[in-house]
């Protein structure tokens, strides 16, 4: 803890080591779901 370990725990290097792959997949799945349902409802509106 404290300033002694700062070489290994710099804020920037710490952030870049986050693994966001799962988050990325989850966000994209949600995005695709929103897009697909939006166009689905729009197609329903146009067909009626």
């Amino acid at each position, binding site marked *: 803890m404290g300033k002694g370990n700062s070489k290994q725990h710099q804020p*920037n290097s710490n952030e*870049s080591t986050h693994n966001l792959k799962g988050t*990325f997949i989850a*966000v994209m799945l949600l*995005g695709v779901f*929103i897009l697909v349902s939006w166009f689905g409802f*729009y197609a329903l509106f146009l067909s*009626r």
Partner: protein
Amino acid sequence: MHLHKYEKIWLVFGMASLVLFLLIIGFAAFWKGTHPQSHMETIDPQNVEAHDAFKPENLGIREVADGKYIVNIVASAFNYDFGKDTEGNANKTIRVPKGSTVLYQITTKDVVHGFQVAGTNVNMMVEPGHISRYEAVMKNVGEFTIVCNEYCGIGHHQMYGTVEVYE
């Protein structure tokens, strides 16, 4: 500010979707004329007969041009007035050929009602003091039930009618 590579991708994806949706809505509103059904046109709810469209003899369906119809309706608790047939009975069915353009004009004498032709895009709120209009091309053949979809009182479920689209 440092952004993760994935974060940049989903931010761009999100903003691009937003722009796409807004462009389509703008296209529908400004080029295709999709607007709210109440056009801010007011009417005295105590005296709807004073308006030409809602005189008792003008209620119901009328062909104004080839394939173009106007339907005038007065809603009240708990009835849609589509005018009377030649024998003096209340009309409950609107019949139009497939592909015709129908302008529905409706107002109410008392409380807020709904006017939905279930299975089509015709779906309006009917407010006292206002005239609601919706023009629709009836492109699918079938019998479509008209329902009130705003709870208007004890007889709400008795407000109905039919639009019949034939070949």
